[in-house]
């Protein structure tokens, strides 16, 4: 069993005191960040990137820290959904629907426990999915030439606007903005600088880490500065948590739901650009259609808590598959992780599993470890995290600002990058005001160059023949999925959007 051997190797890498400590730290910070409204997994990971770099961590420890944060945030998001009816991050939005009613009925503890369990099942199964599927995807990946890659990137962009955002036109705008930003720098196919205005700092293009920290973390600080008189968390402290162990009957009732939605969420995660919000949304709506015979969904049905939580955590694991095996992120957070990998000089893609097996298998083992840590943290110790929700933003936000500045300066040592970051922060603030989603911008900046280069490579290789783009069964298949993915939400999306608006989706600008 090659697989089990590799996994055993992975555990031997992950089971060092340093890596265990990092996983624990990551899980803890991740859960807190997930629980804090507004700070989702992508911001959480983005904020901690500088920490990973300043600690001088190698590739594997850095990834272990950041993916623990990622998984942790996916767990943590549910806490504020259930207790405060404010989603800690967007994927946890669906958890509000049944979690908050349960909490009001004095079952907050049970809701937290069952959702914690569902999160565990979701990510546990997804991690197995990652192990079983990723090596297969690697074999498929060698079928990908420039033409197929271009089709794949087109797929990512075309499915992006779908359900995960409230407004497809705004997603398209954001993606176009990101693509535009990606054009800055020296064009690799001709060696000519574009949009650099003779500024040598721009020759390498915009550093995505700078863009991400500016767009997500700094704009969060600006939003806070603007709304510093608001206090949304006053209600939470009075909430009765209740008993923390769900009755067996509840677990039994939820088990089929968790298994189904884990599978569904995983698939949603594997599709590039769909992400965890989509996973939790489809999971909830499918379960509602499937098992809600008595119309209890939305009124505090535990299955309504278990479904989206299993779904979004499974999607988080699923999103790692295309990132590791193809170098194409499956969600906003994995887009951030991809940027980290690239800065660590590791190119994810078909050869990652053969060239850096220690990184991949160490990471996978760490995911299992993090998952058990999170289960332990999130059921008995959930009281601790509920208290963190009461940390006033006036203490939290200055910390976020400080970490952003120190971190970015620490990476590049250039004050020009700080200015760029502030620029992105302001842009992020304006775009959030306009309810434009930020994730497509990051995807655009990240994938834009690769998409353009692959288009031009494909056409050059075939001596200027554009039909090369639809020359293989694989690329035709990808184009078909892309077109369906683009058109379907236009029809289905109307229904979906109506529901999202019903929930008063205030955090719509950050998906995943």
């Amino acid at each position: 069993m090659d697989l089990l051997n590799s996994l055993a190797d992975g555990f031997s890498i992950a089971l060092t005191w340093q890596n265990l400590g990092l996983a624990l730290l990551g899980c803890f910070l991740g859960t807190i960040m997930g629980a804090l409204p507004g700070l989702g997994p992508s911001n959480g990971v983005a904020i901690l990137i500088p920490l990973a770099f300043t600690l001088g961590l190698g590739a594997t420890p850095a990834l272990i820290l950041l993916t623990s944060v990622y998984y942790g945030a996916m767990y943590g998001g549910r806490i504020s959904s259930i207790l405060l009816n404010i989603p800690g991050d967007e994927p946890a939005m669906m958890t509000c629907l049944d979690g908050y009613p349960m909490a009001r009925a004095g079952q907050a503890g049970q809701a937290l426990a069952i959702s914690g369990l569902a999160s565990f099942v979701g990510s546990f199964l997804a991690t197995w999915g990652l192990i079983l599927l990723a090596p297969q995807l690697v074999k498929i990946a060698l079928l990908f030439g420039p033409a197929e890659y271009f089709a794949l990137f087109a797929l990512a962009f075309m499915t992006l606007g779908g359900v995960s955002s409230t407004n497809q036109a705004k997603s398209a705008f954001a993606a176009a903005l990101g693509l535009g930003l990606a054009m800055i720098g020296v064009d690799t196919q001709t060696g000519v600088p574009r949009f650099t205005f003779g500024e040598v700092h721009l020759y390498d293009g915009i550093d995505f880490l700078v863009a991400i920290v500016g767009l997500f973390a700094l704009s969060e600080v600006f939003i806070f500065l603007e709304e510093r008189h608001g206090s949304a968390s006053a209600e939470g402290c009075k909430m009765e948590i209740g008993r923390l162990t769900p009755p067996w009957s509840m677990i039994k009732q939820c088990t089929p739901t968790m298994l189904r939605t884990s599978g569904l969420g995983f698939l949603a995660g594997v599709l590039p650009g769909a992400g965890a919000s989509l996973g939790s949304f489809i999971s909830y709506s499918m379960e509602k259609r499937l098992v809600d015979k008595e119309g209890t969904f939305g009124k505090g049905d535990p299955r309504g808590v278990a479904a989206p939580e299993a779904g979004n955590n499974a999607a988080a694991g699923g999103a790692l598959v295309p990132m590791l095996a193809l170098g194409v992120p499956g969600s906003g957070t994995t887009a951030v992780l991809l940027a980290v990998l690239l800065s660590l000089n590791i190119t994810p893609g078909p050869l990652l599993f053969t060239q850096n097996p220690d990184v991949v298998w160490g990471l996978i083992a760490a995911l299992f470890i993090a998952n058990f840590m999170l289960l332990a943290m999130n059921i008995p110790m959930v009281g601790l995290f509920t208290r963190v929700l009461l940390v006033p933003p006036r203490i939290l936000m200055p910390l976020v600002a400080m970490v952003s500045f120190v971190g970015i300066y620490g990476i590049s040592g250039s004050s020009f990058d700080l200015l760029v970051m502030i620029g992105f922060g302001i842009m992020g603030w304006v775009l959030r005001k306009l309810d434009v989603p930020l994730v497509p911008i990051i995807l655009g900046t990240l994938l834009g160059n690769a998409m353009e280069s692959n288009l031009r490579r494909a056409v050059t290789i075939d001596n200027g023949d554009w039909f090369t783009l639809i020359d293989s069964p694989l690329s035709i298949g990808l184009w078909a999925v892309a077109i369906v993915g683009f058109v379907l939400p236009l029809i289905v999306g109307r229904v979906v959007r109506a529901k999202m608006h019903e929930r008063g989706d205030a955090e719509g600008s950050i998906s995943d």
Partner: protein
Amino acid sequence: MIKATRLTVAALLLGASALTASAEGFMPANPECIAPANPGGGWDFTCRQVGKSLQDQGLIDKTMQVSNLAGGGGGVAYAEVVNKRNDNNDLIVAASSATATRLAQGAYPGNTKDQVRWLASVGADYGVIAVAANSPITTLPELLEQIKTDPTTISVAGGSAVGGWDHLKVLIAANAYGVEDVRSVKYIAFDGGGEAVTQLLAGSVQAFTGDISEAKGFVDSGDIKVIAVLAPERLGGEFGKFPTAKEQGVDAIGANWRGFYAPGGMSDEAYAGWVEKIGALYASDEWKGIMEANGLAPLDLQGPAFEQFVSDSVAQIESISKEIGIIK
């Protein structure tokens, strides 16, 4: 007791080496090496490895501080050295063929190669041209002949941008073989040698141009075959099995050298001191071991010889770049 004695001996040895070192004349008070890229790349490696070895051998008495000043493919660091730190005697900067290529193509706006003093080289990575293991092509002349007769059938993949060093290497070879219009050679730029090799394996392209260190892993795995090394003679050790371009009748040499430059206003005494130190380092057995471990081939040039070498290669790249229309 024994431990205490050992410590004393160690202290004495350290003291002694510090004394001998300072007796050599110039000694930088705060030695610093700028790596014009993020940690992890080739320039960063050059700075850190040389800094560590210099200190290990007592050639400098303080730890070399390595600053990463990324941006503009080295242009940010170049401008910083020229404009702000022009008379710093303690500073050296890592450089390579990429630096010379960008200088030749005017990719460092407003800067020329004469604004700094070129110190010495510490080794070179020779270029290779490779094809997939199952390719019908087995020699360099076969590949170049096919390019000459029908350039549209051969796509060459490399890890650098168009006009970058990987591209120029294949053009140098084509030029040497007698391909009239080198612009017809179809070069596909990928983000790094790894991605280019992947596409060679996937069958999207027919040939690969890169550095020997990039190709090594895939040669070991039996996926690609190296049809030519662009070195003056066969390399040592396990690389010795690859034929050179020269022995196949194509007189092309492409070396990605690594070395250092210093600020243009550095005093002659300091310049001579650094040249001597890096020269002494290069001659040491420790450095030979490091070169071998990292796939670096010998390139032993210091002081004026290195300045001449850089200026020759800038001129060569300039003329090819003009020919292919990268610069006017």
